């Protein structure tokens, strides 16, 4: 299948999803993180369609634009499943599809606690040209991104990724800590990484009328993420680390916009990344699709 036919299929899929968007509106309450996860899962039956971009500068190489779509579905109140499709453009080189990821997040405890664990399991089938920087693990460094696309895409990466997400809400603040363990399913060592985040809405009380620009719809935060080496060489050295302040705008219409500049903290990191995203939450998506197959049961 050619890349252009694939993009037509992709547009068709998005069209079908957006036509189902009439199912209902539910205002998302997204945190501003792009790499870190908190313990809040998708509401059951809702589908969130998301698009994200990462524009990255490179010393010694061309600027790149990594992009990905996420289809995040609340299977139950304690289980969220998500599919990613990713690609990238390296300026002066080419645009390539880089693969897919399938992740699952499960909340093992029934009630809210001081610290709330969420278990994360992901399978990735991507190639070496992937540049979305959805996480940093092992000894990921800026120079990994200098390989031309034609050569990099020949490398296949089938990886399993596990995360332990520990997240707390306290007086309007969210604090989260993610520990990442990733293994290439070929004979490669386990690689580790981390992501930390803190965020807070600009207002804790909701306004008494509907409004797009009320401060409770804006959540500001900061995240820090980086690698922790591998099982043979564990630690903060010879890997990259980023600090990224971010802002999210959760509109009452169901749309969400995020923006996050990220700054490299050492010489192994990209000096600057600009990340942004847009998403739309389709409430009652599961029921709507179910009715399509069963007929209207009302």
């Amino acid at each position: 299948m050619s890349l252009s036919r694939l993009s037509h299929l992709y547009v068709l899929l998005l069209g079908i999803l957006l036509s189902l968007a009439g199912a209902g509106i539910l205002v998302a309450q997204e945190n501003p993180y792009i790499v870190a996860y908190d313990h809040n899962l998708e509401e059951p039956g809702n589908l969130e369609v998301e698009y994200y971009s990462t524009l990255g500068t490179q010393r010694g190489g061309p600027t790149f634009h990594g992009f990905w779509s996420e289809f995040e579905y609340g299977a139950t109140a304690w289980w969220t499943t998500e599919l990613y499709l990713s690609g990238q453009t390296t300026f002066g080189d080419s645009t390539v599809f880089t693969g897919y990821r399938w992740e699952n997040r499960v909340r093992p405890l029934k009630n809210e606690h001081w610290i709330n664990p969420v278990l994360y399991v992901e399978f990735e089938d991507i190639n070496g040209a992937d540049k979305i920087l959805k996480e940093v693990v092992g000894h990921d460094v800026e120079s990994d991104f200098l390989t031309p696309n034609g050569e990099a895409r020949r490398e296949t990466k089938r990886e399993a990724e596990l995360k332990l997400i520990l997240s707390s809400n306290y007086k309007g603040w969210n604090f989260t800590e993610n520990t990442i363990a990733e293994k290439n399913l070929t004979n490669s060592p386990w690689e580790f990484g981390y992501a930390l985040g803190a965020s807070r809405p600009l207002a804790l009380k909701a306004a008494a009328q509907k409004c797009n620009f009320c401060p409770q719809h804006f959540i500001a935060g900061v995240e820090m993420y980086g690698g922790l080496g591998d099982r043979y060489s564990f630690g903060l050295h010879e890997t990259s680390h980023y600090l990224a302040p971010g802002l999210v705008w959760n509109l009452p219409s169901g749309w969400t916009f995020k923006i996050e500049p990220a700054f490299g903290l050492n010489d192994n990191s990209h000096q600057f990344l600009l990340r942004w995203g847009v998403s739309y939450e389709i409430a009652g998506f599961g029921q709507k699709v179910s009715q399509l197959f069963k007929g209207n049961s009302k």
Partner: protein
Amino acid sequence: MKISTLPGFSAFLLTGMCFLCAAQGKPEKTEPASVYSELEKAPAKYQAKANPLAKDKDAVAAGKVLFEEHCAECHGENALGTKKAPSLRAPEVQSAPPGTLFWILTNGIVRKGMPVWSKLPEPQRWQLVTYVQSLGPVEAMENSPPAKP
């Protein structure tokens, strides 16, 4: 991934999504009494919590906005319940201590499909409780008049 493997993967994915959606469409077989029995599980310290926004003049209006944004999809525009979630106008809910409703909002009832709403800051959860309890009780859904918040 080779491009040629995509159709197979897409078919697998669509089958999985249909299975998930079909599971989602199944109404929960729960008696109203068992739904409301969750209210009794609130710890005593929550039951004793007073609503800090009970006298806030904007709490009902703000709670209505929040309800429409986050709750109406499942509980219905007038909080009279839908196939997905029970009525919040039932006497069990309307007469429950505010702290109990706050506890339910904070913790959800995740095994029965009610999401956790701790992502809303505490004041917004209290605004929701204030609004819901301002609606007043309605015994039976069939004969219930439209809510006038």
